[in-house]
């Protein structure tokens, strides 16, 4: 009798522990997915991987004229993207703390409307946290009709806290074709 009592007691203990461990498994599974937003937060704080921040607001301030920073603009167009995409100026010199406006030229070579999305990337990676965009075409998808051209503006200022060792910032935009799939097949027919 006592033996079977002991046995069922043992089984209850095992069940409780198994349940706990299954919980741990599920928590770790959730953690795997949570790594995505965590990583984004981490990137935003540290500038890891040169991902850029969202929209910034420029407050009137005295520019730091003691040093000049070279800002280079680079454009990369994905192979399946039938747009010409280039900066109007490939590089400018800026004072930290002053707001500037530059523009990028786009032309849709295709015979149909195309939706594009530009993704920015900085080099050196860490400067992204000191580069503030107050207006950018990269915040939204852009649609161009067949054969259309456009100049897309981008306003920014470089933070005065930018460490001294950085004198060149490269901002590269990669332009992706994000035209919805059904539109693409329609056009192909």
């Amino acid at each position: 009798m006592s033996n079977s009592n002991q046995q069922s007691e043992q089984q209850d203990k095992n069940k409780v522990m198994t349940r706990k461990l299954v919980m741990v498994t599920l928590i770790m599974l959730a953690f795997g997915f949570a790594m995505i937003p965590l990583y984004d937060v981490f990137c935003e704080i540290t500038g890891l991987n040169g991902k850029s921040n969202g929209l910034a607001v420029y407050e009137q301030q005295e520019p730091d004229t003691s040093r000049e920073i070279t800002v280079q603009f680079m454009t990369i167009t994905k192979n399946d993207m039938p747009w010409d995409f280039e900066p109007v100026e490939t590089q400018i010199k800026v004072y930290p703390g002053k707001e500037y406006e530059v523009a990028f030229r786009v032309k849709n070579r295709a015979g149909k409307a195309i939706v594009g999305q530009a993704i920015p990337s900085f080099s050196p990676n860490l400067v992204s946290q000191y580069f503030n965009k107050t207006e950018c075409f990269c915040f939204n998808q852009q649609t161009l009709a067949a054969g259309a051209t456009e100049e897309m503006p981008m306003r920014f200022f470089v933070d005065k806290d930018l460490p001294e060792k950085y004198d060149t910032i490269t901002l590269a935009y990669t332009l992706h074709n994000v035209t919805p799939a059904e539109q693409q097949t329609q056009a192909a027919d």
Partner: protein
Amino acid sequence: MSLFRKVALAVAALAVLVLTGCSDQAYNMREGVTEISKEVYSLHMIVIWVCVVIGVLTFGAMFYSMFAHRKSKNPNPAKFSHSTTVEIIWTVIPFIILIALAVPAVKLLIKMEDSSNPDMTVMVKGWQWKWEYKYIDGDNDPSNDVSFFSNLDDASRQQALNAGKYFSGTKIEDENYLLEVDNPLVIPAGQKVRFLVTAEDVIHSFWVPDFSVKKDAIPGFINEVWTKVDEPGIYRGVCAELCGKDHGFMPIVVKVLEQAEYDAWLAEQVEAAKSGPDLNERTMAQLMTEGEAAYNKYCAACHMPNGQGNGPFPSLIGTEVVTGEGSVGKHIDIVLNGVPGTAMQAFGAQLTEAEIAAIITYERNAWGNDTGDKVQPQDIYDMKNGGGE
């Protein structure tokens, strides 16, 4: 004890023998030609020697014990099973050694990662399976930027295929086999060159051992790495990250020129880019010859030299797109713009109008396709710039 000494001596002698062998070029890491690569090499040699010394001591003790404490010599085992002092010692000593190794490594790493104040910038873009180089000169006129593709050379391609004829007896003797390209990257000597590395499709890795430069090329992101080479010469590297079928067939060749020679080379490139595409009309024979060469270079890796395709890569013989009635437009469109969601790339930006015209003409008339269709560079130019359809 004397036997122990003999064994220890033998082990040490062996280690020295192996290590002297290791200093030979072919066995060991390359010293390279930049200040950084030389420092990397010496750090590498320091770590090797630290490991060898620790290894000789540890394994020496072990082999001594294996020999001296075997049952026939030592029938009564000792009884001890722990000693706090000894355990603390062998925790602390490795710790100190590691710190001693970490200090120079940290210093060197900080130096390697300092890409500030470059003299010039080259964008490096990895493609399946070639490299694209773009020289960014900073004169605010993008049309002055020189860019070109760099593919594995035809000789290597041919040799790989010949050796592939199942023990044809062809032995590969070319010392630059798989390490030669058609258009090398050219940089000037004595200048700090910054590479901005990115990729079109999958992750590649830009590796030139002689410069101790290795950086992943990640689609959608740019990474930077730099080098300063004082000695003009030709340096060879490879793609280091698995990027699909022809990962082993996309070498990197860097030609370092004296500043004056480099300037002349660059001026020539800018001139060539400005003169516009060659749209001269060609005869059928010309198109077929040029087409065969270009096809073997850009298309044969997937569609095979005989056009029969391979696995996921479709055959080009007698198919709708290639031989179908009135399919020329579709055919050109596919070559120019690729097929989204498949491995078929858009070649519009990579190849010249003349190359594309020749390839399409070749595909439509080779391997018994015999459609008789002739596509001229001008047709391609019109389709590219008029939006086609």
